């Protein structure tokens, strides 16, 4: 049956089904994407967003269903499954969450990488440059093409990634969590660019779980839950709460901020410097009081991880002192744990759990030498099992049992193991580094509730995050870290998000650019 050219979508995913073992990652997913449209793909972790995009891009082959793209002649044709090369040729460009750039090459070299024939005698730099200049002008994606990628800031690297897709004449642009590493201002400018590109006839899908940007930047929202599309509707017809409920499948109770009762100072930084390079911190002064949450706002890579390492006992300050209840903190992880500091690491897979070990072993990882779990150096299996069963119940860790291999659990459940392990020791101080990064709405709410419980119990909580919503929701006071410097924390009530966003980008509290 003949159809008009304009009636065909640019991209059509039809009845896509992908099953891993017992898990239906995608079940009968249908999604059309028209030229000039920005679609937000919303969903919890494990909802199947990444699987779907990997099928689209040819990294996986769907068990059923077909991926079709509009051919130059205007009809839809099947995309060869499992062939990223075919996806590229069909004009699909992908910007991954973790950039795929060679750091030792310049922006220009990264962009042309792979487009030149292996047998070409030399690549025509000037031709590539001319094409890119034109693209930069028309899209507003300005970046210095001759600088090595290692010297570029995160936002600039993302622009290089997008330019890479445009350079290959992408008609369909897929962005996986594009704002995860950007400041609010950088995100705004990214979405401006995307709108400009869509206006020129591109079709754009971006994956996100941040409600505000989904509502602000998309024309249409598709919600994935349990591998199925549960909603696909114009953004104008959506509201925040409705979307959250559709995404999770039940109503979400977000944690409400109750002001704490700040008492004495516990963890005190006095003139602390540590680390080197981009992650250096300099002359940090900060006093955490009992019963309060201090939120430390900042874009990743401004010294947060060094600060976290110092508090975790993994790095010694080069100057200044960190003291707990007036005693200097020992630069030794075991001693730090014993002194009552719970640490929730930023990279929970890398530092939080031993993936190959079981859930029960990970739950006692920090306390294995305590007499409760060993006698004469031999493990007390019954005690460990009992502890694990209690924790699995109390923290609702979804796993097949205490012996389940931790690596196979979802991010949210892995975070629950870390929470159970650290918070059940009744800590005086909680260091939570990016505790909800990559978690879905339900798991995030759970993390927030646990942190607030610790605070209400009288613990001092240092919350490192780049999610302003989270910071404003939980913190009693907020400080901003930028290039290793931390400003004096201010009462949350006296701040607004825009102001904090500007400070994260390096402007001082009053608004002018810092030196």
């Amino acid at each position, binding site marked *: 049956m003949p159809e008009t050219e304009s009636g065909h979508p640019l991209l059509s995913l039809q009845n896509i089904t992908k099953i891993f073992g017992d898990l239906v990652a995608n079940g009968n997913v249908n999604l059309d994407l028209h030229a000039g449209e920005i679609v937000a793909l919303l969903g919890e972790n494990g909802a199947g967003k990444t699987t779907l995009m990997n099928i689209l891009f040819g990294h996986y082959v769907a068990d059923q269903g077909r991926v079709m793209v509009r051919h130059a002649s205007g009809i839809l044709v099947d995309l060869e499954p499992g062939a990223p090369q075919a996806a590229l040729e069909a004009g699909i460009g992908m910007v991954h969450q973790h950039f795929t750039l060679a750091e030792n090459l310049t922006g220009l070299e990264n962009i042309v990488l792979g487009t030149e024939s292996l047998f070409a005698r030399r690549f025509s730099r000037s031709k590539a440059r001319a094409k890119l200049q034109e693209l930069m002008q028309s899209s507003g994606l300005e970046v210095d093409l001759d600088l090595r990628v290692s010297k570029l800031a995160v936002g600039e690297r993302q622009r290089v990634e997008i330019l890479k897709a445009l350079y290959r004449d992408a008609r369909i642009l897929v962005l996986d969590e594009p704002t995860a590493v950007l400041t609010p201002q950088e995100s705004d400018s990214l979405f401006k660019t995307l709108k400009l590109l869509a206006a020129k006839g591109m079709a754009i899908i971006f994956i996100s779980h941040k409600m505000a940007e989904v509502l602000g930047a998309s024309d249409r929202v598709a919600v994935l839950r349990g591998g199925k599309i549960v909603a696909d509707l114009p953004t104008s017809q959506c509201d925040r709460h409705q979307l959250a409920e559709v995404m999770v499948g039940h109503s979400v109770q977000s944690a409400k901020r109750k002001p704490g009762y700040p008492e004495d100072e516990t963890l005190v930084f006095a003139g602390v410097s540590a680390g080197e390079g981009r992650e250096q911190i300099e002359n940090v002064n900060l006093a955490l009081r009992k019963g309060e949450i201090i939120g430390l706002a900042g874009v990743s890579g401004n010294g947060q991880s060094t600060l976290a390492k110092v508090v975790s006992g993994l790095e010694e300050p080069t100057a200044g002192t960190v003291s707990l209840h007036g005693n200097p903190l020992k630069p030794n992880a075991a001693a730090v744990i014993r002194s009552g500091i719970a640490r929730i690491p930023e990279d929970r897979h890398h530092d939080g759990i031993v993936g190959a070990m079981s859930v029960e072993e990970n739950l006692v990882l920090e306390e294995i030498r305590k007499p409760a779990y060993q006698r004469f150096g031999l493990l007390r299996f019954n005690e460990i099992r009992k502890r694990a069963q209690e924790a699995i119940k109390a923290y609702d860790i979804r796993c097949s049992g205490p012996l389940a*291999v931790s690596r196979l659990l979802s991010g949210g459940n892995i975070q629950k193991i870390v929470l159970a392990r650290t918070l059940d020791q009744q800590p005086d101080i909680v260091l939570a580094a990016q505790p909800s990064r990559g978690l879905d709405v339900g798991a995030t709410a759970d993390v927030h509730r646990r942190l607030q419980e610790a605070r209400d119990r009288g613990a001092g909580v240092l919350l490192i995050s780049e999610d302003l919503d989270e910071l404003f929701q939980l913190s009693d006071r907020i400080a901003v870290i930028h290039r290793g410097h931390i400003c004096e924390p201010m009462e949350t009530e006296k701040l607004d998000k825009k102001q904090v966003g500007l400070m994260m980008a390096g402007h001082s509290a009053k608004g002018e650019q810092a030196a």
Partner: protein
Amino acid sequence: MIRFEPRSNVSSLFAFALPIIAGITALVLAAIPIAAAGGEVFAAYGHIFKGAFGSKFALSELLARATPLIFTGLAVSVAFRAKLWNIGAEGQLYVGALAAVAIGSGAISAPSYIMIPLIILAGMIAGGTLMLVPTLLKTKLGADEVVTTLLLNFVVLLFVQMMLEGPMKDPMGMGWPQSEPMTSAATLPKMFARMRIHWGLVIALVSALIIYIMMKRSVWGFEIRATGENVSAAKHAGIPVTSTFIKVGLISGALAGLAGVSEVAGLKGYLTADISPGFGYTGVVVAMLAGLSPVGVVVAAVFIAAVFVGADSMSRAMGVSSYIADLVVAMSLICVLVSSLFVCFKIRFVRPKKTPLVAKGEA
């Protein structure tokens, strides 16, 4: 077209069956070199089996050969569990043997209930101390222990040769570079008359049991496993990673040192520079075949020893070179390494098909 798909979960039966399948595959593949050497394949397998298991004498030879392999296999498996890549079991074996000979060939005279524990202890300390060097270089300076342990093997072997040509040379040895014989009090007794199988085997089995309990049931084993599987998470959780590495290095070196003690005090009676035909390196194969499990090490050591002893007797009977044994051992290692690919990935054969251009609605 072959496609690799990552497996999400591996059944324990599958993981258990794989090394066995790998061993059988290696034996089957050995038919090719046997045939190429002009031997009759089925007769050759018969000779291998008979040579390894066919008589009491064969069994004794088999277990005598398996004894040092259990020690070195355990040494490697403990170290590899912590991802401390000890390729130096060969050198540790030699210093263990050297220490046993230094004490046990007449320097001290005491009854055997003192001498035997003494030479065992000396061998363990010597092997452990040798392994301590690369371990400390790794923890303090970040030196790659694969390189340092491997190269120390040659240093040790040359040192042993120097000692055997010089200060420790047996004056009654007719000029051969060999040490003075162990005194009878410092000799591990034979288990049966006129057979070479000796009490070193029992020490090896007890060691395997101790290592099994340590890895499975002790805090040390827990910390070793955590360190090996994810060193940064272990550090973050306050596990003393550096001292765990040192512990592992000492234990691993001590076990390899025991192999040397057991060979000089149980089998040979004196030290020569060719006392080990690569037991240290074969220990790596044994440990990998065993999937680093201490109980598996015993089984794998017996398998490898059977291949060596069987192929030896086959080559004598059929006039085929005994290097066939080395080939089978090498192939079983390769088969195990390949099979570990199957543990991680499912392999699918798919036929790439060119999809025709189909308009929507027509299909």
